[in-house]
């Protein structure tokens, strides 16, 4: 509950933030803090310098392009996405954000923080992989785009490396999406989750909580049997813990993938 000594800075611009993050090797970005501060309370892992991004207003916007593409600033909170008219262009985003934790966490927790912490039980990593989003990363002096299915590298590890900052997430237009999960209690932490999108014809399914990173599958059709076949084909090796054995998670992955695809194709 009591943190180790840490230093703190609150840069006014993205450039300053990136410079700070690359200047100190123990520096970490502090967005909403809804994961990082809890990890620091347990003193399981401790950054040396916290670079607070909450003054970077230009990372907080949510814009809808004329072609229906959504650009969500990394510092947009879950509540921002739930209440933004623009984000209704892709309704699954707001619907899933509404299932994350509770009001207090959704008021502070950010989209960027969720994907950059990449806890295997998070909702957004599989969702953004399924909808085919693209992450924009700013490093020392250069900006690059990384597709979501190449962004997640390992537990708490993403393509945004030390000294780099995720600035925005671009979501292509689309309507036929689905998300299904089994959680610990109502709207609790996910035991297994699965996201699906039929926007570009053949189904894209991403399963969370079964590996360090979301597992992307492209079943041959959106028939439940085809989707379940694809999941079995992935021969998942999920972790086991208090809430689920590996077998149970493997079984849920099949069921939830099928349900997510059914929801994406307009089924109940």
């Amino acid at each position, binding site marked *: 509950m009591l943190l180790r000594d840490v230093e703190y800075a609150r840069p006014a611009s993205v450039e300053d933030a990136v410079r700070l993050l690359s200047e100190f090797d123990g520096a*970490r970005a502090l967005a909403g803090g809804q994961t990082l501060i809890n990890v620091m309370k347990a003193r399981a*892992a401790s950054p040396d310098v916290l670079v607070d991004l909450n003054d970077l207003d230009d990372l907080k916007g949510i814009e809808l392009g004329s072609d229906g593409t959504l650009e969500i600033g990394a510092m947009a909170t879950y509540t921002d996405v739930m209440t933004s008219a623009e984000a209704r262009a892709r309704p699954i985003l707001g619907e899933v954000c509404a299932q994350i934790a509770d009001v207090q966490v959704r008021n502070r927790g950010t989209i960027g923080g969720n994907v950059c912490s990449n*806890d295997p039980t998070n909702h957004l990593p599989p969702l953004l992989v399924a909808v085919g989003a693209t992450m924009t990363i700013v490093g020392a002096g250069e900006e690059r785009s990384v597709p979501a299915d190449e962004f997640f590298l390992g537990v*708490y590890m993403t393509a945004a490396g030390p000294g780099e900052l995720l600035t925005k997430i671009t979501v292509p237009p689309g309507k036929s999406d689905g998300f299904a999960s089994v959680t610990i209690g109502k709207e609790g932490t996910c035991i297994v989750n699965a996201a699906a999108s039929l926007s570009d014809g053949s189904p894209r399914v991403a399963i969370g909580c079964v590996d*360090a990173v979301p597992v992307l599958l492209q079943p041959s059709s959106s028939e439940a049997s085809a989707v379940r076949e694809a999941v079995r084909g992935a021969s998942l090796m999920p972790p086991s813990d208090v809430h689920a054995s590996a077998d149970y998670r493997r079984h849920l992955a099949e069921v939830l993938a099928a349900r997510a695809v059914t929801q994406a194709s307009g089924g109940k």
Partner: protein
Amino acid sequence: MKVTGERAFQAPRATVWEVLNDPSRLAKTMPGVESFDIHDDKRWSAHVKIPLGLGGLRMSIDFEKTDEREPEFAKLHAKGNGVGAIMNMDTSFNLSEAGDGTNMQWEADVHILGPVASMGQRVLQPIVSQQVSHVLAALDAQVREASAAGASSEGV
């Protein structure tokens, strides 16, 4: 938690054996190593800051070679003390010649205590395998470096 694996090296067994028994080289394979000191040919220790995405996990690790049969088998005990976690690990490896390369079978029995163990059960497996792949990759580099150095000295 038991982790096992195999690794093939493009180097003669003697070179691989030399790397695996040279603490200064082994230290360089540790993720986030900050410093190490060698007590004797059987014991050495290292200070590491294991890079976990959300912050570094500082740990001081004491290594001790508990068994060896040159050039085919060795066993190491490692005791890591950190705030986020305490680690007790027994690791052993068998080296066998495969043509002009070497085949290593290794296994590690890892016991972790502390907050990382109790709160991280879902992520422990992937984190350990992540760190193991770093170590093996670094080991590859060390073996290549050693065999390159060996070849050049033979060449002279």
